[in-house]
């Protein structure tokens, strides 16, 4: 699988070097310089947060929340324990970027988390790693040990008086544990089920203590921002969409893989980077931001640029940056059936609309796919979607509905054809 970078997280990584993840290699390409800069220059917590704000870095976990702003919500003066948590539970179908970060450049994440801990006055962090990438979990543990041995992590970091402990924790592969409050429950040893918000983790997080949670890529972008300056990061992308972004490109392209490119790159350019369509196929549709993002048809897609604002204007989301490319051989009913099955199986089951609704959605799509649908089913799907979205405890409900809405918006004909002719339009 290809990894390509013109950016921040993988800045300078030689992917052909099997030891590229190691501390000495990381230091050689400028690693831990940001941490040293803070410590040696006694840069204040406020200045670090200000730098992150300036960079316009937005959360890479899916929601795109401005990271600097999130950090400023942490009650730094809180007298008890506070926690920093990294979300490497990457379970959204189509997304596989965080996995590569902890495999190929784990120290960028570690350094980013130490800086975040420093900025928010937090002394303990956890990295919650998806259960099905156990090798990468081991790799991350090895990197942690290197950092500890080098005095970069643990007590009294680089003699600064600042201490930060960081632990790795691996889950068991439940998608819902990527939702930040379910992740906290799971980290506490409980069943991974989202909590109702408010209270938000910033006031009531891990073990009830103030907690900041960010995605792996978010943290791994921080060393660059501190080292090179927020302004430089911002300028890599576009206003309000700072920096570069990792896109996990999958589907019918010649070279699927992770591509780290500046925000705002036209989709057409990104597609070309990935070698264009596989076997000369013709682009039919793209899910631009992970399986929960509404699908966009080719003609719309070829006009968007890859950033939060442009994709949102086109009616979808940048999400986690997973770009699922589909050529004309794809039956949209079948594709939706697969997506709906995922959400049905991954619903945690605590709240009614999601527990009952995701199964219902899936069964209707499944019926249509099997040629047993009826004309009323499409309206029913839309109506159910409205009854699920926005009424659940966490956003999984919305995530399950968006693919349905996107498909029905852009490919209604295909569904109608299935219902009326009891067979597929494509095959």
């Amino acid at each position: 699988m290809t990894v390509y970078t013109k950016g921040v997280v993988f800045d300078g990584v030689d992917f052909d070097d099997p030891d590229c993840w190691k501390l000495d290699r990381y230091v050689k390409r400028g690693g831990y310089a940001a941490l040293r800069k803070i410590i040696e220059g006694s840069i204040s917590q406020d200045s670090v947060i200000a730098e992150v704000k300036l960079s316009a870095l937005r959360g890479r976990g899916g929601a795109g929340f401005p990271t600097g702003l999130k950090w400023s919500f942490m009650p730094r003066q809180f007298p008890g324990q506070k926690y920093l948590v990294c979300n490497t539970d990457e379970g959204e179908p189509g997304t596989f970027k965080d996995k590569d970060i902890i495999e190929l450049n784990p120290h960028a994440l570690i350094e980013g988390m130490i800086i975040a801990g420093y900025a928010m006055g937090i002394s303990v962090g956890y990295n919650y790693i998806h259960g099905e990438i156990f090798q990468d979990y081991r790799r991350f543990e090895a990197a942690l040990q290197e950092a500890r041995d080098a005095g970069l992590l643990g007590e009294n970091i680089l003699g600064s008086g600042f201490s930060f402990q960081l632990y790795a924790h691996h889950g068991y592969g439940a998608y819902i544990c990527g939702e930040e409050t379910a992740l906290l429950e799971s980290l506490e040893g409980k069943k991974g089920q989202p909590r109702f918000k408010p209270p938000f983790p910033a006031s009531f997080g891990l073990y009830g203590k103030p907690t900041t949670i960010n995605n792996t890529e978010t943290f791994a972008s921080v060393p660059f921002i501190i080292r090179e300056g927020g302004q430089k990061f911002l300028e890599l992308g576009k206003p309000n969409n700072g920096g570069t972004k990792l896109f996990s490109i999958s589907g019918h392209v010649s070279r699927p893989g992770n591509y780290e490119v500046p925000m705002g790159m036209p989709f057409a350019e990104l597609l070309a980077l990935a070698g264009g369509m596989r076997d000369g196929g013709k682009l039919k549709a793209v899910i631009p931001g992970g399986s929960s993002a509404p699908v966009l048809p080719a003609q719309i897609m070829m006009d968007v640029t890859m950033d939060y604002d442009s994709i949102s204007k086109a009616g979808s989301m940048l999400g986690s940056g997973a770009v699922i490319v589909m050529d004309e051989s794809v039956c949209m009913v079948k594709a939706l059936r697969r997506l709906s099955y995922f959400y049905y199986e991954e619903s945690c089951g605590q709240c009614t609309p999601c527990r009952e609704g995701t199964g219902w959605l899936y069964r209707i799509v499944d019926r249509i796919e099997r040629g047993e649908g009826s004309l009323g089913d499409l309206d029913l799907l839309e109506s159910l979607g409205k009854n699920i979205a926005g009424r659940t405890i966490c956003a999984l409900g919305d995530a399950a509905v968006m693919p349905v809405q996107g498909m029905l918006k852009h490919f209604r004909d295909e569904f109608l054809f299935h219902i009326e002719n009891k067979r597929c339009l494509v095959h």
Partner: protein
Amino acid sequence: MLEIEIDGKKLTVPDGSTVMEAAEAVGTYIPHFCYHKKLSVAANCRMCLVQVEKAPKPLPACATPVTDGMRVFTKSDLAVKAQQGVMEFLLINHPLDCPICDQGGECQLQDLAVGYGDVDSRFSEVKRVVPNKDLGPLISTDMTRCIHCTRCVRFSEEIAGAQEIGMAGRGEHSEVMSFIGLTVDSEISGNVIDLCPVGALTSKPFRYQARSWELSRRKGVSPHDGLGSNLILQTKGGRVVRVLPRENESINECWISDRDRFSYEALMSSERLLTPELTIGGQVVSTSWDSALSKVAEEIKGTIEKFGADSIGVVASPNSTVEELYLINKLFGGGLGVRAINTFGRMSDYRLVSESEGVRWLGQSISELRQSDLFMIVGSDLRMESPLLAQQIRQSVKRGAELCVLSPSSSKQLCRSVERIVRPDELLSSLVSIAHSVVVKIGKSVPAVLQLAGLLADDDPMVEAIAKVAGRGGRISILLGEQVENSPQALEIAKVASLFAEAISAEFGWSFASANKVGAQLLTVDSADPTFSRQRKMLIGFGVDLCADSPNAQLMSHQVRAADALVLFSPFKPLSHVAPFSASLPVAPFSETGGSYINIEGVVQAFNGAVRCAGDARPGWKVLRVLGNLLSIPGFDYQSVEDVRRAALGDLEKLSSSTLNNSIDVEDVRINEKHNALIRVGDVPIYQSDAVVRRSHSLQETKLAGCSRLARMNSKTLSSLMINHGDNVLVSQGGAEFSIVAEEDDTLPDFAVALPAVIDGCGVLGELYGPISVKKNM
């Protein structure tokens, strides 16, 4: 305070209130399933979605904190559409089998479906089916009906204190269940039946007995422990078919114990005595009340004439009503001059009666008790004695209070606590040591009695905990339980506890496991001498099983066997008719008579009979009235149970503080020498506590009932006796032997044998907390 407007109604609510609470305060009903005022907020059913001004989405009222100036619309189009949407989801997989569902007619889903459900279903897929679970003999399951509100899950963890119910699986495959292979064994488990909004968890004993709309509701008061839980007795066709809690925030909140809930099964058991029976010359004959009572009156008269009033012994259950106890004392004590009248259950140290300055009680109200910063429970297996009091203390501990337990055996309190488990004969010396150490630690002067035992280690956790709270002037409550009440050193322990309480400015009181122990003390005539030290010619029992309810079954069974006459007033058939003259008189149980109980906080709670008496049974007060008249004792012309109550209590609703008094008049306290001889820990098993409970079939099937059929010892005791876990052993007290299975239980102190007060064949056993010997049964 925050201002909020709900459907146009303005009100102010305290900070931290939720929209649901505000709506309740203003009388606006918001449909809900998972919300329950006593449980944590789960916000999972989504039925309570309402519209909040400026919020883009409908919000769950139960979990949404009120903000100042908030405007909420519970019946707007947006809110109602959201609620209807949720209702549709709840119904798609819910079986529409209301006609065969036990919850039918009292189902929140059924009720709300009428308001929010649609006539037709848009769901044409196959419905989900969920296998049922075995939760034990009390709770019946139909898990396909579960709507996943997790009320039962939250109850078991938050209120009952043990995670016995959970939701396993994910998404649509989520199932509420107990641990694999385990049942739900909590002593307050039945509350999940009330909490379950649908027919997933229902009462097993009540299954298919009746429809809710066929039932009449009568007020009742628990006859099983001193809390005085308020009950609703539901009746059909002249029978009690179900018992539910009647909410009383200051006593039982909205809960009842399983004992209160399921004991009614005994009321219609085949063991009920339905006509008076006389045994004359070995022949049992059913007879009329007239003939039975005149024979009994004759027998009493004859016995007194021939042998004097002291040849009669009376034992009345401390679960008897105020009216019954008043008439028993008036008839036998005042009227006939009988002094051996025991209304104190298993108490064996009668100095507690003679040396108490008033009526012993909780020492404060139940609501005040809950406010304690530290509870010190001395000599009580509180969860088994008074399950809901234990529950309330657990809630206080969760809010930050400390709990210290000093006891010879204690079921886990299921909350944070410091426990000290000691031999029953070391309860006194341990208490003295603790008291001594605490008083020294907080720098107060130590009363002489508290110096009788040495100091504990400086870092003793119990001493530290008490001293810390005492030092900062926190509210401490010292609570004595049945293990003290039934101990031969009860008086000394009580004295030491009261001195300790005084020295550290603590509250001090008693938690009784009988419904009317306070009433029994109040009503006992001055001349009473409840000891049964010498053989009586005639024994009279009221509401008791003479041996099982006695402090020393061995002595009592000698008494019974040697007596010439036995008169038993009881709702139940006697275990045997042995005396030359035996009379069994069917008196009404708690459900068939009016009366009143005085609970541990001194509150008088009156109730009426819920159903007519079964068979020829008659309310106890009426039977005693007739007997009084037959014996020509003046003043037995009461017209109603209220008349009797007025004679007994005047118009009191709560005993006065001059009557309620825990002071103990004793100067001389001596502490036994330490020794290692085997000693019995004869606690009363929760489902053997009285004659009614003992005959409740389903309660007897529970695990808790099963645990009490073993002789438990810790591993050290077992190995010193060369006994293995599971061995058959012979236990003996006072020369009589008894065979039982041994079980290892390391929660017990060394050289102590937990052998319950009541087990089949226990008639041969003696003192509850006395010497015992155990050997392997070869």
